């Protein structure tokens, strides 16, 4: 497997686009599940009511990898998500998420070799304002 070639061929190309309607009740339940207590996250009547910063981590597209991606990731494991907050998400917003592969790289650790596939979702609102970027790492052991 040549990760350099994978990177050249697959990184940076949008392969999935989905839209979500943002509802106050769902925002509230997510905030409470996170243990939030600030009114701007837990009180829909608060004038600054908005989604908690990591809210976009719960959204998924229609596919994990581009069609035809040559690496079998069925035996991969979840390397976690990194959420970069850009702007508030409000109740009633329409959020569009576009997915592309952001990076493919290898590393070695005490447990052996690994390939990292970084799936990036960029979230914009109905005003085309970027509200969040979520990087999801998928890790496959190679030895």
């Amino acid at each position, binding site marked *: 497997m040549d990760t350099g070639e994978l990177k050249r061929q697959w990184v940076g190309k949008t392969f999935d686009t989905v839209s979500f309607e943002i509802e106050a009740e769902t925002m509230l339940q997510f905030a409470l599940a996170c243990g939030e207590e600030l009114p701007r996250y837990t009180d829909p009547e608060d004038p600054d009511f908005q989604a908690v910063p990591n809210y976009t981590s719960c959204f998924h597209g229609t596919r994990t990898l581009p069609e035809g991606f040559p690496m079998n990731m069925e035996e991969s494991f979840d390397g976690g998500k990194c959420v970069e907050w850009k702007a508030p998400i409000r109740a009633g917003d329409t959020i569009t998420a576009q997915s592309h592969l952001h990076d493919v*790289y290898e*590393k070695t650790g005490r447990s052996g070799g690994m390939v990292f596939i970084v799936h990036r979702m960029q979230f914009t609102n109905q005003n085309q304002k970027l509200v969040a970027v979520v990087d999801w790492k998928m890790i496959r052991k190679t030895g």
Partner: protein
Amino acid sequence: MILDLHSHSTVSDDGRAKVENYCQWIKRKEIPIDGFVLTEHRLYDDASDYRSLEDQFGLLILKASEVETEYGHVLVFGVTQELQAAFNFSQINLSLATVLEESERCGGIAVPCHPGRPRVGMCAHIGTRGEVEGVRTIETLNGGSRGNENEQAASLAARKGYARIGGSDSHIVSHIGRCATRLHAEVRDMNELVASLKEGGCEAVKLEDRAWIPES
């Protein structure tokens, strides 16, 4: 002079610490350290400039790299553009001999790190790949080591007569300065650090009860 010679910032893929937060932590916790070296994984961070943080916090902040070879991970101090052109820092199967030779040729020094660590430490590969020529210094105290990994490294250093350094290998703020290196000379920049390491004017130390203790 005490420097932590092995640390990672958010520039590394698995680093979770901002450099400013390292500085704040060192000052807040009064860690008796003069500075640290950012040894980012598989790259050299050309872009970042930490001079304002150095001035603000009174710390020396230097940049180096941690690359991956068939003998495990290696810290490279004194990275230049010429050295970056000599081999691909992002590859995980670099030749240790090449990293050692090219680093020397370009005025730097390569130091195998956490040599006692399974798979990514030099000790694990000497048995199958043979002894390594050209190593003069290894990291014998690593803040991320488990079990007897540091002891294995110290045994290797004793057997081969290597000079020794220490580093926290911190990826999160609270780990900075767990281990460090006492330099016999004052260093103000990377060139002076490389010169000090090449002279062997260094020893690995660990922080216990707010004092630096030589490795046992």
